[in-house]
């Protein structure tokens, strides 16, 4: 039986960085993957969706090019070509992960991992062949999550979750989206930008309920007014039926029909078949594995990272950070906590970036905060780019001026959030962020203006009326 210092179960955005980091630190490492290297993120999540969105954004912008003096004539898109490009990008990155793992001396096992004993892993190959058993000084569980598809939904080729949607080679002309979360809204915007007729049904009072209401309002206005997406909230989608001619359902009194139903009601952790009990582990009532801040499970020689862990944000970069931390803790025998400040990016139109707490969370916690906001309508670069909508917002502690949260909705919001994350991580005060000289003309200036606004000292916004 082969022995390794570290065995990683799952080669997604949590698992493969964990394997590489452990190998960098001199450990002998094995990684087990039952599907494709790169996991959901690279193959069926972040990367393929952003590839398609790049196309839809360009198409959408070109169609409105006349405002910027561009006449493109009759515009068409070829969804099959878009899908093909997506597959190529994914394949390129896929090879890249494999090369990185190999270059670091990580042994790759194809098959399904399960525990045989606390530190012994069984690998069952997908097809013919015998199981392999390997021994690991430390095992890192990084098996991720999969789309949750409630059992009451009809099993039909017109009812798809995100992964099956990405396999399409033609875009449906009308789309019904069940669930107004991140995935539902991203797909809705992408399809709508390409001209599909889209309806989003969300049971909660609003889409993307974890965001502050002003951010949600800005996105929803664009989705409804610019993209023509029908957004129905506060009602469940009922009487869902699928047939050869299409899908139908009812949200409250509204009858809905479409070519396809996209199910995006959340994700569930992948732990079935792992035989966790043989490692002395169990899952909580929602199926997640409990870990401490250092990513350790109850079993001292087993770590867990990413979507499979309790309290996970279900974000690839959070899994990566945890994976690196777990690898370091496993190899160096330390107990460093993984970072807990996780920015989130939503690739809707407009984009949304968020890091730290929301205003609502501050209010709920009874915390006294000051808020500074700056609209892109007041920013030279945004006007020059023809993208005057949206805003950035900073939330700071009233007593110490410490930056606690930052939110951006508008052009490049997902890239802009990086600066805010750095400032919050470094425990910057709003005053100091405002003192950093920002290059002009750039979108990033908006943070400086918002930091000024937080102290009522914004140069490029009219003062608030004196009370």
């Amino acid at each position: 039986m082969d022995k390794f210092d570290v065995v990683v179960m799952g080669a997604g955005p949590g698992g493969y960085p964990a394997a590489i980091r452990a190998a960098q630190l001199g450990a002998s490492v094995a990684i087990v993957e039952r599907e494709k290297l790169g996991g959901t993120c690279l193959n069926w999540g972040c990367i393929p969706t952003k590839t398609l969105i790049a196309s839809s954004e360009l198409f959408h912008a070109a169609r409105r090019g006349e405002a910027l003096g561009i006449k493109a004539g009759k515009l068409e898109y070829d969804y099959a070509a878009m899908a093909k490009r997506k597959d190529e990008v994914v394949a390129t990155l896929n090879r890249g992960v494999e090369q990185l793992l190999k270059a670091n001396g990580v042994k790759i096992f194809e098959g399904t991992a399960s525990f045989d004993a606390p530190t012994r892993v069984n690998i069952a190959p997908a097809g013919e062949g015998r199981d392999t058993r390997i021994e690991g000084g430390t095992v890192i569980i990084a098996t991720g999550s999969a789309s949750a598809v409630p059992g009451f939904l009809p099993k039909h080729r017109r009812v798809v979750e995100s992964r099956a949607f990405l396999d399409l080679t033609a875009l449906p002309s009308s789309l019904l989206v069940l669930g107004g979360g991140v995935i539902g809204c991203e797909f809705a915007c992408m399809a709508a930008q390409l001209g599909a007729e889209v309806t989003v049904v969300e049971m909660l009072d609003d889409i993307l309920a974890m965001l502050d209401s002003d951010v949600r309002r800005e996105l929803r206005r664009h989705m409804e007014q610019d993209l023509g997406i029908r957004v129905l909230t506060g009602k469940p989608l009922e009487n869902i039926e699928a047939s050869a001619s299409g899908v139908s359902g009812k949200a409250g009194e509204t009858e809905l029909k479409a070519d396809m139903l996209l199910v995006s009601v959340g994700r569930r952790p992948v732990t079935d078949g792992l035989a966790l009990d043989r490692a002395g582990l169990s899952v909580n009532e929602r199926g997640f594995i409990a870990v401490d801040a250092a990513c350790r499970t109850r079993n001292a020689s087993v770590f867990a990272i990413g979507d499979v862990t309790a309290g996970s944000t279900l974000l690839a970069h959070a899994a990566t950070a945890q994976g690196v931390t777990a690898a370091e803790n496993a190899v160096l025998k330390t107990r460093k906590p993984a970072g807990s400040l996780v920015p989130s990016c939503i690739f809707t139109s407009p984009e949304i970036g968020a890091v730290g707490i929301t205003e609502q969370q501050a209010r709920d916690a009874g915390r006294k905060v000051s808020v500074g906001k700056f609209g892109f309508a007041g920013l030279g670069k945004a006007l020059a780019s023809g993208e005057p909508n949206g805003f950035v917002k900073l939330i700071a502690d009233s007593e110490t001026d410490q930056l606690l949260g930052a939110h951006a909705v508008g052009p490049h919001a997902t890239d802009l959030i990086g600066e805010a994350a750095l400032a919050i991580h470094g425990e910057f005060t709003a005053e100091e962020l405002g003192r950093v000289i920002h290059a002009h003309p750039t979108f990033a200036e908006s943070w400086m203006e918002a930091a000024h606004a937080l102290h009522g000292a914004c140069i490029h916004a009219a003062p608030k009326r004196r009370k």
Partner: protein
Amino acid sequence: MPKFGQMVEESSIVKWHKKEGDSVRKGEILFEIETDKAVMEVESFFEGTLLKILVKENVSVPVSSVVGYIGTPGEAIPATPPPTAAAAPVPPQTPAPAQPAKPQPAPVQQASAALPAVAPRAPASVRPDGLVPSDAKVTPGARAPAPALPAAPARQIISPRAKALVKRSCIDPSPIAGSGPGGRVQERDVRAYMESRNYSAIRISPAAKKLAAAREVDILRVRGTGAGGRIMIHDVERAVAERPRALTKMRQVIARRLTESFTTTPHFYVTVAADITDLLVFRKDLKNRGEVYTVTDFVLEAVIMSLQEFPILNSVCDGRTVRWHGSVDLGMAVSLEDGLVVPAIRNAQDLGMRELHDTAASLAARAREGKLTPDEMTGSTFTVSNMGMLDVDTFHAIINPGEAGILAVATARDRVVARNGKMEIRSMMNMTLSVDHRIVDGSLAADFVNAIRKKLEDVALWTSLT
């Protein structure tokens, strides 16, 4: 100042519920006082306006002192000698009461006029100008330092520039030695101190520094847990949380009384194990007949009987004299959420088992509800502390001030013991007697605690008593 409880000689008002000028109705709560045992609310016996508060909050004064005046507005206040703070006060700030005039309003003191007055102490701390001492500068809950403590260091003189640097740098200047005239701390002293403490090596996040400045945290004393030892906001928050906080009133009383007892009374301890197997069977029989008693009830009764056999254990010694208490006022320690009280079962020697059980149960219940009267909380002559329900093998209790001993009762456990030459499993309960060695010696303590043990083991005795 009302006298609550026989032993109370001084009390302090912890909170006035009325301000000067407020109207007061009969029966309204006027103020809260703290005695040795508890905080009590005091109702007004008079109707009128609170004209003058003489005793500020947190100043301890002898009982029967005048604490304020109630009368009609405009009425002048008599020039009663102002009450004297029993503890050493800080310099006074309150002006003297106005000159006397008629008619005289009723002093609040009359609320307790029926109680024996205590002769006012020599007004040592009253200044010649007759100002009333106040402790306005003492933080709430703090007491004046005991005289044995060394005097506080002389006030540090610090130049404005040095002060500004100290503030900007978030450091505590008190360890800095001044090199200026008269030991004045100057900017260069602060810089030298900062260099000696390797200040420039400190790394701190901007928000953490701001919080440290706002909360006056000395960052030289904060351990950083961020990358490379950088001081982060939670490190400063931890430093703030680690600051000393004032004990609750009750804990201060406990601290004072137990320290006094433990440091002035020479304790020694004798432990015996009582075999209560038969007693437990007997108690169960009683229970089946509808007669409910707790194990504590039997212990209390055994102690009461033994105290009458050994009167010296029901006495109090002050180092020069020993005074016997003619009645057994048995204290029973009752633990509360944050502290404990010792209500006394008065004249316990006159109570039958049923009365004893009812009294003990009622006292314990009211103690937990905070409804004991001050007299019930003071003046016990011997105490029983039962931790039987807390799963302990043995413990040593500290004698309550004013008493000669305390019995610490531990958990009864099934143990293998030798009995009549054979091994048997018996329910054994350890009891540890703590006694004042000034009046009780080893053999007497042994006899006393064994007398209690023998009673608990004698079921025939309990049959006759219940």
